[in-house]
């Protein structure tokens, strides 16, 4: 006799947000890793923690996928939802990649690039925090069925995020130029290590921005 109660499926949006929280823990760890680049022991420990956190995020992701059976009907397209989830999870993956690359060997000539690197990292991580704020708006978006003033607000937020990503890429260019200028003085292994670190940090900002834009795709703006 509880047909009505049984009609309502388990909403996947709250788990989506809690997955985002786990992902943000990974990024927080990453920030700490960048603060302790010069203490190798502490860095190794932090990277192990990060791997653990990434694994937990993976588990949450799989949980969400499992509890989203075919017979559930949602206000946004199923494939859109899964794409958002996948992008969100890849942020955690990228954070782990960065951590692992950093733990391979200490960065050679760190002092030389320290200032530019930290500025670049800060910009990229800022893009992520912006995206996280957008995911936190999903409650309000559901309330307004993804339209109206709330959608306009999120749209503005997405535009800001995109702008910040653009600024981060500029910072990356600056850093790369410097790296190539100093290239002669670095061993090829050290050069390649630096290149990889920079590329991967850039990807963090790119994926975050992509996620923000995916949210924009489900909005009903005129």
């Amino acid at each position, binding site marked *: *006799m*509880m*047909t*009505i*109660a*049984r*009609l*309502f*499926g*388990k*909403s*996947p*949006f709250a788990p989506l947000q809690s997955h985002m929280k786990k992902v943000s823990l990974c990024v927080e760890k990453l920030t700490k890793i960048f603060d302790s680049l010069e203490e190798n022991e502490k860095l190794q420990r932090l990277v192990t923690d990060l791997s653990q956190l990434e694994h937990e995020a993976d588990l949450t992701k799989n949980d969400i996928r499992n509890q989203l059976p075919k*017979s*559930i*009907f*949602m*206000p*946004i397209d199923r494939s859109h939802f899964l794409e958002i989830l996948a992008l969100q999870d890849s942020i955690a993956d990228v954070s782990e990649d960065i951590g692992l690359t950093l733990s391979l060997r200490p960065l050679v000539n760190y002092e030389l690039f320290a200032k530019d690197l930290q500025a670049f990292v800060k910009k990229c991580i800022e893009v992520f925090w912006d995206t996280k704020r957008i995911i936190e708006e999903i409650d*309000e978006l*559901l*309330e*307004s*069925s*993804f*339209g*109206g*003033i*709330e*959608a*306009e*607000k999120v749209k*503005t937020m997405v*535009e800001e995020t995109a702008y910040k990503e653009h600024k981060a890429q500029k910072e990356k260019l600056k850093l790369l130029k410097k790296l190539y200028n100093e290239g002669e003085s670095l061993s090829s292994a050290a050069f390649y290590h630096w290149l990889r670190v920079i590329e991967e940090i850039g990807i963090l900002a790119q994926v975050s921005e992509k996620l923000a834009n995916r949210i924009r795709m489900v909005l*009903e703006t*005129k």
Partner: protein
Amino acid sequence: MEFTLILTIIVLLVGFYMAWNIGANDVSNAMGTSVGSGALTLKRAVIIAAVFEFSGAYFLGSSVSSTMQSELIDVTRFAADPDTLIFGMCGALLGTGIWLQIASYFGLPVSTTHAIVGAIVGFGALTLGITGVEWGMIGSIASSWILSPIMSGFISYLIFSILQRNILFALNPAHATKRLIPILLFFVFGTFALSMIFNGIGRFNVNFTLPQALLLSTVIGALAFAVGLLVVRRIKIPKTSLETPSRLIPFKLISLEKAIKHLRRVRTGSIDETHNKITELLEQMHNIKRDMRQKTRFSKRTTEYDLVEKAFASMQIISACFVALAHGANDVANAIAPVAAVIDTIQNGVSASAAAVPSWLLAFGGVGIIVGLATWGWRVIMTIGRKITELTPTRGFSAEFGAALTILLASKLGLPISTTHCLVGAVLGVGLARGIRALNLRTLKDIALSWVITLPASALMSVICYFILKSILV
């Protein structure tokens, strides 16, 4: 004489049990959604449900009851043998009661309405043969079982889409609510008044022609509109939403974006000088847009949704009352139609014309529903209310409006339908309009299952009970 007295007592007891069952289980459909969305507290919901269920049963319940009592099977063919009709109806009631008990033990999704219709048809087909069943009537009832969820879903979809476009998607939801609520009240009261008075008002012997009914319902709607205007004027919109300077209000920005979109369209179709000029214009407009977007504060205005929800909590109370009324009108028949048939046959023998359902019996059914609500139903309302958090007042209002209108119309046409299925259809309608986070489509399978299982099972039960009664009492 003693024998008929025993039968009367049995049939009254079983009828009361059925009414109790409806009150205990089905009233929660009407009220659970309102409690779930926070529009009503449990105590108020129970009081409102009691009042409106009883009124629905007492004042509007007669047409469905008389359909069930005398139009499902050809009762005139029992004229020579009224005892068979008495035993049969008793058997149908008992069989339905037992089947409902078994079904709820196994957690099967069954509808009281389907069970009782199945039971009556079952004993009718057994005693009179296939020809004794009024297949035309059964056909229209069966089609109403398919059509009613679709209709309520469609109405709810429409209502929620309108609310979405005009309130939720508006850039000033609070103002939009104030503008729309009186109009909504006009339609709500107008349509309900119309569906209630066309075809005569239940127990009262008044009949209106269609123009008269239309006029009267328009007047009632207009009254609601006027009251709505007065109430809405009192609602104060929090100041934060008015703070933005007039030159930066969000919808101006939207207009600008639209202009850009149209200009782009013009540009794609133009060449040479016009093309260059438009490109220049577009660039300028883009710059203006960027500046405006930076200065516009969208974030401040999102709090307006709170006010919308508050306003619709009151609207939802109104729609919940209508659901309770419509539910009482439709479902009381499940309990008292067989009782009425038995008592009528005992007192007057079988008559060709459908005897009017005595009003004391409708009241008896209404009381049964209230007792069920008071002893057990409130618990079910609470459980369902806790489970449903997806239905905010705007969504709850849309769903309840669609369901109530459908049930009321069916009751007026004398069609016994399942109120649960109507509500499921309505909720799905709201979900289709992107209103609800997640819906479990397996419920549709449940509904199909309820059809396939309930009809033959309750028919079988009723036949078994008929034979048992006959062998004991004759």
